[in-house]
Structures are given as C-alpha cells and as structure tokens.
C-alpha cells in the first residue's frame, strides 16, 4: 500500500524486511526452508517433432520417495523461502498419488488383531472402560434420539458409528488436554466423567444445565473437564484450538489442544487458517478429522477432490496420518502417538479417522432420502466399531455376555432416570437471558429485562410457564 510504504521507509525497517525474506535471523518460530525440491520420477521420453505438442506431452510426475533430485542440469538457487534445485523439464506434480494414503489399523473387520499390527498397548482397566463407554454412548444416543421422536426433546444429533473415534481418542489423551469439539464428540465428555444426568440437563435446557439453557441440545461444554462449549458453526473451533495450544506451549504445560471436525469442516476457510497457523506457530494441537463420508447429504465426492483430508496436512507442513476410525485400538494408538509428538516437538498433527456416519445428520434429517438404507445397515452391522472392539476385549478375557447385559441394563435405567429428572427440573430463571452477555449486564440489558418482565406481567399467556421469573 502506498500509505504504508511511505511510512516504512526507514532504513532499519527495510533491513528487517530483507533479513526476514532471506531467511536470516528469522523469528523464533523459524521459517522452514524447503530442503528438497519436490521429488519426481524422471520424465518419459515421448517426443514429437512439433514443439507445441512436445510441450503438451510433457509428462506429469507423481510424488514418490523423499530422495532429492539428481539431474545433471540442475542448479541450485536462493529465493525467499530457501534453496531450490532447478530443472529444465516442465513437470507438473500430479494432482494425486498413484496410491491413496494407506489407512492404519490394528484389528481386522471381525475384531481380530492383525498379526503384524503395531499399537500402543491398553490395560484391562482402560480397555474395559473404553468398551463400556462406547456402549454407554451408543445407548445414550439411542435413548435421547427416541426422546426427541417422542417430542420430549426439541433436537438431537447422534454419533452412531463413531463411538470408537469418540472414546478411543479421549482415552489416549490426558485430562489437561483441552478439547475444541465440533458437535459429534460427546463421547470425549463421557470418558472424562460427564454424567448422563449432566448430558440430559443440557438437552432439556434446565436450570442445572451449565450452559443455562441458552443453546440447543448437544451443545455441551464443561470447564471442569476442559471441553469448550460446542458452537454449531462449522470449523470455527479450529483456529481457536491453535491459539489455546500456543498458550499451553507458552505456559510450559505438558498438554496439547485437540480439535475435532468432519469431512465437511475441512472445506471451511477456518480449516486452512488453523492448519497454517498451527504450523507457523509450532503449536501443540491435534487436528482430528472424522471423515464419516457425509456432510448432511453431501458425500465426500462433492466435498473435495483430494485423497481425503490426510493429504492436506503436507500442504501446510503438518505431519499427518490416516487411521481406521472404527478401530478403537488404532484410534487410541494414533492419538497417543500424535499427542506425544505434538507436546514433545511443539508441532501440530493431523489425524484423518475414516469412518461412517451411521445415523442421520440429526433429528431434522432423514438420510434415506439421499443414501440407501442397505448401505446404512451394512455399516451399522458389518463394520460396527463396538462389535469389533468387543471381540478383541473378550479375546483377552476381559468381557463377557454377562458383563454386557449388566452394563446395558444399568445404563438404560440411569438414562431413563436422567431424562425423568431433567424433564421435570425447572428451566433457568429469566434473569439468565440477560446475564453473561457481558461480564456485567450493561444498562441497556438491565432496561430490557425490566421491559420484558413488564410484558410478561401483562401477557403471561405468551410465555412458557416453566421459566421461573
């Protein structure tokens, strides 16, 4: 800008700009120089007499190994950003690798441990809690979903099919890791100790809801459990998580920030903003993508044309892994290892967990309108994360049919009681409509509260009777 160029004409500022551009004396979160030219295979020798077609016939190369390019014609030169080797060939990096990035898994589809699988071991205690919480999450979802169908809840969104992502990731984290959820990760709260009653209170928006009745169901939050309150806007939590991670790093904490999002969320601008910032700021943050194949009715083929989300990490200089999201052990290991790297090395990690959204997007959606009931059923039955993990847990002698039925009957009882209590607990007081907009209500809100109360006195029939005044 003309204006700022004029004002930044001082010698020292010019020098600073030059210094930075040449990568000398760069700031503490240093610019990463490209150490290698992007590697490619040697071009094919298809030659045509016409120079124009020869240009068009130039081969497109694919990314292969990380060996540096050794072309006799190559020279190396400095541009801002670091040294690059030159090449006389016109090579376009292919839009995709020949092979899709493989997916890390530990258990096969039937829950048998793969012979050459490597994973972080889990104790009996942890494994049983993981499995129990997956069952609890599924049952909680079932019962709340039904409650909505019956008209007792205004809205609900289930996490069917994603129980392993929810629980196993939570299990691999420490309680000090701060969570920035999207909205399909209540299992993380469950793992940390949020009770069924607390879930129900938020869903019914009663006076025991920590959110004070301000938001729709499933918009949970708990400062006690380091789980930031859900907001429905997609991917807005991603850059927030990066800032929080930076804070943890600066405060020297042995913890990271963890943020979840879906395949749809990876299309948002905030995804790009967050990953780029995380890399530059060297922030200890885990980006966990639940690629469940659907963003409401939009399949991933309408969402992006990359090989899923995992390949996007490299574009930002972020270490990434693709994992079977329906494999609890693989999820656990990936998150465990990712977390270690994030904290120890002060770096972001991208984890793409492949899964399937078995449920509808929410109670406002009937997904049979855009996908077949058979497809849903197949994922629900044949690729179910619960049954896979249960097989493995039982194979260790840590679970049984009896344990299963005991658990299920206990959870059902607890859930029904939680709903009964939540339903009849009164709503938050009207004054909570006006509190917390700011730390202290300003004059305009105090005035408006008076006006509203006056109106309620005159027209009580216009107002719900279960909101105490």
């Amino acid at each position, binding site marked *: 800008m003309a204006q700022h160029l004029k004002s930044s004409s001082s010698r020292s500022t010019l020098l600073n700009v030059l210094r930075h551009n040449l990568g000398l004396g760069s*700031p503490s979160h240093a610019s990463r120089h490209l150490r290698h030219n992007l590697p490619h295979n040697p071009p094919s020798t298809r030659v045509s007499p016409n120079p124009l077609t020869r240009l068009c016939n130039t081969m497109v190369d694919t990314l292969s190994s990380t060996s540096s390019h050794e072309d006799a014609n190559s020279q190396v030169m400095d541009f801002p950003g670091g040294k690059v080797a030159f090449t006389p060939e016109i090579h376009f990096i292919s839009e995709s690798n020949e092979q899709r990035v493989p997916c890390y898994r530990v258990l096969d589809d039937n829950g048998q441990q793969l012979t050459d699988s490597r994973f972080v071991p889990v104790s009996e205690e942890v494994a049983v809690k993981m499995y129990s919480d997956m069952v609890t999450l599924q049952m909680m979802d079932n019962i709340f979903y039904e409650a909505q169908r019956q008209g007792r809840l205004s809205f609900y969104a289930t996490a069917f099919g994603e129980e392993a992502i929810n629980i196993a990731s939570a299990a691999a984290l420490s309680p000090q890791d701060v969570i920035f959820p999207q909205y399909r990760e209540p299992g993380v709260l469950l793992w940390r100790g949020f009770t069924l009653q607390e879930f129900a209170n938020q869903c019914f928006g009663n006076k025991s809801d920590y959110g004070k009745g301000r938001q729709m169901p499933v918009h949970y939050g708990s400062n006690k459990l380091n789980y930031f309150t859900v907001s429905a806007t997609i991917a807005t939590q991603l850059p927030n998580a990066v800032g929080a991670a930076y804070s943890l790093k600066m405060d020297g904490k042995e913890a990271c920030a963890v943020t979840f999002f879906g395949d749809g969320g990876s299309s948002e601008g905030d995804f790009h903003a967050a990953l780029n910032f995380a890399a530059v700021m060297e922030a200890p943050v885990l980006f966990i993508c639940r690629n469940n194949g659907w963003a409401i009715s939009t399949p991933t083929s309408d969402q992006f044309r990359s090989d899923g989300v995992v390949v996007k990490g490299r574009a930002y200089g972020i270490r990434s892994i693709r994992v079977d999201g329906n494999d609890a052990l693989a999820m656990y290991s990936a998150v465990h290892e990712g977390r270690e790297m994030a904290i120890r090395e002060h770096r972001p990690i991208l984890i793409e967990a492949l899964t399937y959204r078995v449920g509808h997007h929410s109670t406002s959606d009937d997904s049979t309108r855009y996908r077949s009931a058979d497809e849903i059923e197949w994922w629900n039955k044949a690729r179910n994360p619960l049954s896979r993990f249960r097989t493995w847990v039982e194979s260790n002698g840590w679970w049984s049919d009896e344990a299963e039925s005991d658990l299920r009957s206990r959870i059902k009882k607890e859930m029904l009681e939680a709903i009964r209590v939540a339903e009849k607990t009164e709503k938050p007081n009207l004054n909570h409509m006006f509190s917390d907009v700011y730390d202290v209500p300003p004059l305009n809100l105090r005035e408006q509260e008076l006006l509203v109360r006056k109106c309620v006195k005159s027209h009580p029939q216009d107002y719900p009777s279960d909101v105490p005044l």
Partner: protein
Amino acid sequence: MASLLSRFCRKLAVPGSAHGARMVSTTTSCGSETVKSLNLYSAINQALHIALETDPRSYVFGEDVGFGGVFRCTTGLAERFGKNRVFNTPLCEQGIVGFGIGLAAMGNRAVVEIQFADYIYPAFDQIVNEAAKFRYRSGNQFNCGGLTIRAPYGAVGHGGHYHSQSPEAFFCHVPGIKVVIPRSPREAKGLLLSSIRDPNPVVFFEPKWLYRQAVEEVPEHDYMIPLSEAEVIRQGNDITLVGWGAQLTVMEQACLDAEKEGISCELIDLKTLLPWDKETVETSVKKTGRLLISHEAPVTGGFGAEISATILERCFLKLEAPVSRVCGLDTPFPLVFEPFYMPTKNKILDAIKSTVNY
C-alpha cells in the same frame, strides 16, 4: 480545496483540548503526571508497551506487527518482549482473530491487529459467532474477554474503497462485544488500556488519519479511561452534536464557526459505541432540544440511526427539530470523489443552522 490542503498540511489540534469550556477530565492518574507530546501511533504504542509489561500473559500479533507495523503502532515491542509474545502472523484475518480467541479463552490477553478495518470481514464470523457468544453460550464457564482487536479505520485523503472504511456499525449490532473509538492520542492510550483489560472482547478502531496528524500531551504513566462513558468536550446550549474518532475534529471546527454566528454548540465524544452512554446524550439533548450526529460511515444503517432512534424515544417532547445526521454517502468510499463524500465542516455547519432555524 483549501480545507483538503489544510487537512494534509497541518497537524491538528485535538478536539476538546484548547477551545471552550471543558468538562472535568475523565482520565485517572496516579502519582505525578509527566506528559509527553505524542502522536496517535506513539500513544497507542505506549499503551501496548504498558499492557505487555503489566501482564506477562499478554500477546500482540497480526500481519507485519514484528517490525513495528505498517503504522508503527507496534514499534519496539518484539525487541523488548520477544518474538514469542509479539509476532507476525500469516496473512489471514480469520486465523488471526480465531487464534486470538483461543489464546484469550485460556486466560491470556490477546491484542490482535487487523491491518486495515477494511480487511476485518473474514474475521466477522469469528467475532460474531465465537468471540461475542463465548461467555454466554457456555453459561459463563468460559470467556474470551482478554481479546482486543485493533484496526485502523476511516478516511485518509487518498485511501479509496479499501483503505478508508468505517465499519463500526456492523459491530455495534453484535451483543457480547464492545466497540471503542478514540478521538486523540491521550484518549487512545487510556481507552486502549481499558479495552485490553476489560473482561469482554473489544473491537478498537483507530482513526488512521490521526496517527501522525494528531499530537497531544499524553501522560507517560499507566492510566485508563472508562468504557461506556461519553464525554462532553465542549459545552453549549443550542444544539448537541455527537460523534467519535477523527470526525470530532471536523465537528469542533463547525462548532467554532457556529459560535461566530451566535449558535452555542455542545459537543459529545461517544468514545464507546457499544454499549453506548445514552444518559449523557439524553441529558444534553434535554438541555439543548436539538441533536446532530456526524460520522464518516455511510448514513443508511450507520450508527447515527441508532442514536437518533434512541434519543427520539427518550427526548421526543424536548426536541425542537428533527435529529440531523451528517454522514458519509451511500456509496463505496470513492477516491477522486472523497471530498464530496465526506461529512465536511461546512455540511455540518449548514445542518447546524438549518436545525437551529427549523
């Protein structure tokens, strides 16, 4: 033409500092008050130095902030406090504000810079849907009150569409944030420190026109000017004028000219637009019976409309004339036509007279 030249050529006396009776200063000082003659960017720079030195968990960042910033507001900060606390960010406003919200959510003070208010819009989602609602939606379990977003705003003589905007009205419509606009160096330092320390997210617009043009005696110590308190910077009886930021300088000139024609003007600096001090304006209008609001932002949907509607509700029977608004026009901010677009001293003077003679 003459007024345009004079705008460029002379350093402006700040409104309320030399002319007419002034209300008691609202600055609070502790200890001896050493003052120094500073321009706006230096005053802001001082506030940032103080903010960083008084809270070790405070951060300043944004595009080009490291070398001092395109307007020099962040000069010396990185050298003094280190590049972990004062740093450049990638060119991405939604990232800057989103990152700042995350830092603030962890109890830090994040003072983020948006290079020009014209570029704040990518961050609008973060501001409206995250920052403004962070405390409310969580039931006060969480908050990002430590967030302050600074941005240069307003006409600069040659800025055109994308270096001149006054977007304050968009933000005044968002419950949960505060909007603050200082008129001068001394005000800016005190208001910025208040904004940074206020437990609510604040959007702080700095009149870029005044960065170098306005010079004032600014106390060197740590002081704060309260938010949501308007100030009567010139007393009068015939008409109340309300404005903020750089426009107050223009309005004050109009008041001086009006005085020569026997019209006594009361001039109010609103300072905080959200939540705004209705009481001070109401008291004044009940005395004068007339109101004129002036801002650079386009008149339709501008913040002047909110002030007008509120005062109408509260002072209807005391009003001798309709509320007058002398504002920017409903066009994108033009380059060659800037002098026609702007709410100039003479436009204001004409409006004062027609209001008084209604």
